[in-house]
Structures are given as C-alpha cells and as structure tokens.
C-alpha cells in the first residue's frame, strides 16, 4: 500500500510502535519476550548464526511460545560479538556480549526461565541515542 500523506504515515507508525515499545520501554501488549541478536557481518563472523540456532533450540526445548527472536544490525561492540539483548515485559532491556551457543542456552534457561542474570556476560550500554 502506497502512503500518500504524513497522516497515513503517522497511522502506520502508531500501529508499528507496539512492535518496538518493549525494546525501548519494557512495555508489551502481547506479553511477548523479545530477543534481539546482532546479525551484521561482524556478528555473523563471530558466530551469531550458531548463537541464534542455539537460542531457537533452547526456546523449543523449554516449550516457550512467548519468545520472539529478531535479527538486528550491530551495536558497535565488536569486542563482545555476538551480542544479544533480552527485552521482557515490565523489565528494562538487558544486553549480553560474547554469547556463544552455551551462553545462548543459559539466556533461555537462566535469564528467561529463572530470572537470573548471566553476570559475566552483561554488557553496559555506553551511549545515548539522538
């Protein structure tokens, strides 16, 4: 559908906002948990595909149907690729670095299922966005 005015664009934006509110504010209308995984060339080179596969497998094994994985670009933390952000409803987003297959599983089994952080892999977001 072609958009022909700013009003139409704003309507789509309001509708799309639901998709990203969780990521920004920890709000979710659907009760979904969202896992963002950095899938730029650098992340993939560092093994992000394997990490993503492990995430899917672990979600499957745990029988979770309220977790969504979203591929995003890179956040610039090359030293800590692959990076993964977990956004749960009513909680602020948590960023993890150097997430290999094992840590990916722990993100599901510990962070999501037991509400425990994987402390050694926590990353601090060190920037503000315009």
């Amino acid at each position, binding site marked *: 559908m072609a958009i022909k005015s700013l009003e139409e664009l704003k309507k789509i934006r309001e509708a799309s906002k639901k998709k990203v509110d969780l990521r920004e504010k920890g709000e979710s209308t659907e009760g979904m948990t969202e896992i963002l995984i950095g899938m730029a*060339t*650098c992340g*993939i*080179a*560092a093994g992000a595909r394997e990490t993503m596969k492990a995430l899917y497998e672990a979600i499957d094994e745990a029988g979770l149907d309220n977790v969504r994985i979203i591929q995003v670009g890179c956040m610039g933390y*090359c030293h800590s*690729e692959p990076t993964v952000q977990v956004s749960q409803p009513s909680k602020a987003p948590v960023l993890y670095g150097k997430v290999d297959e094992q840590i990916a599983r722990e993100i599901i089994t510990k962070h999501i299922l037991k509400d425990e952080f994987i402390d050694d892999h926590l990353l601090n977001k060190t920037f503000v966005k315009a």
Partner: protein
Amino acid sequence: MKNAKDRLVELNTELLDQEKLSVLEGYIEGLEDKAGSLIHVLHKAQGLFGYLPENLQLHVARKMDLPAAKVNGVVSFYSFFTQEPRGKHTISLCMGTACFVKGADKIFKTLKDQLGVENNKMTEDGLFTLKDIRCVGACGLAPVMLVDDKVYGHVKAEDIQRILQKYRDEEDSNGH
C-alpha cells in the same frame, strides 16, 4: 611462450560451458544500459565461471560491442576480478590495518610456506587458492582468516596446519 597463431587456435577450441554462456548472454541482452554495465556483467560472468579467462573476456567484449582491450583493462584494474582459476577452497587472509597490527603478515608468511604458493595462486593439487583481502570489518576478531565463507578469528601461526589439514582430510574422505 606460445606464438600468436597457437594462442588463437587455443582460444577458438577451448570450449566454454555452453549452458553458463547462454545464461550470461541472456543477462547481457536484458540490460538497458549495456555500455555502463560492464562491471555488472563481469560480476555475473565470474559468478558463473568462477574466474575470467581470456576467451571469456573476449566473448563478453564481442557481445557488448566493446574492444577486448577495454574489457581486459577493466578486469585487470579491479582486485575483485581474477583471471586465474581458483582452487576448491579460497583462503582469504584479512590484511586490514587492525589485522596487520595483530600480526597478519606473519600468518600470511606461514600460509605461503605451508601451501607452497604465492598470493593469488592456486595450490598444485587445486585444493586451495591463497588471497590477501582488505578489511573484512571483523576487527574485533583480528587477525582474521576466511576459508570460503567460514571465518577463523584470533588466528595464530600454529593453528594454520590444523585448519588446512581439516580441509585436506575432508577431501581425502570424499575421494575414497
């Protein structure tokens, strides 16, 4: 050196894969702006054939109404195009600055020694081609080596033997 006549005969008799050639011709015919698309055509040709031998360059030149010298001029100008056949696996070593500072030159020397080839050449067994490439942008993993699309990060000289052997073993087990 072969004489010019021999070369011409060779050009005419060397058969290019006709199926791939017709795909390439179809692509060229579908272009709106032929003259401006030489680089795209060469990308397509290299994608199909793996490299750009002289007879293929000549073929492209004729199809596009360009002098062969111009096509060759473009092929030889850009590092992405290769006129040499490639081995089954391409080993690319990142020679970006970050990798260099972390010792990529030593890794490159080790690779040349162990493969017994110079840069951009194929090993005798046709298994590997060695290439130095510019920054792949995985500086966090420097030094970085790629075998085809597989990325090896934080590579050390002593890892090389093991990595190469893996591909050689694979080849052996396929052969038997």
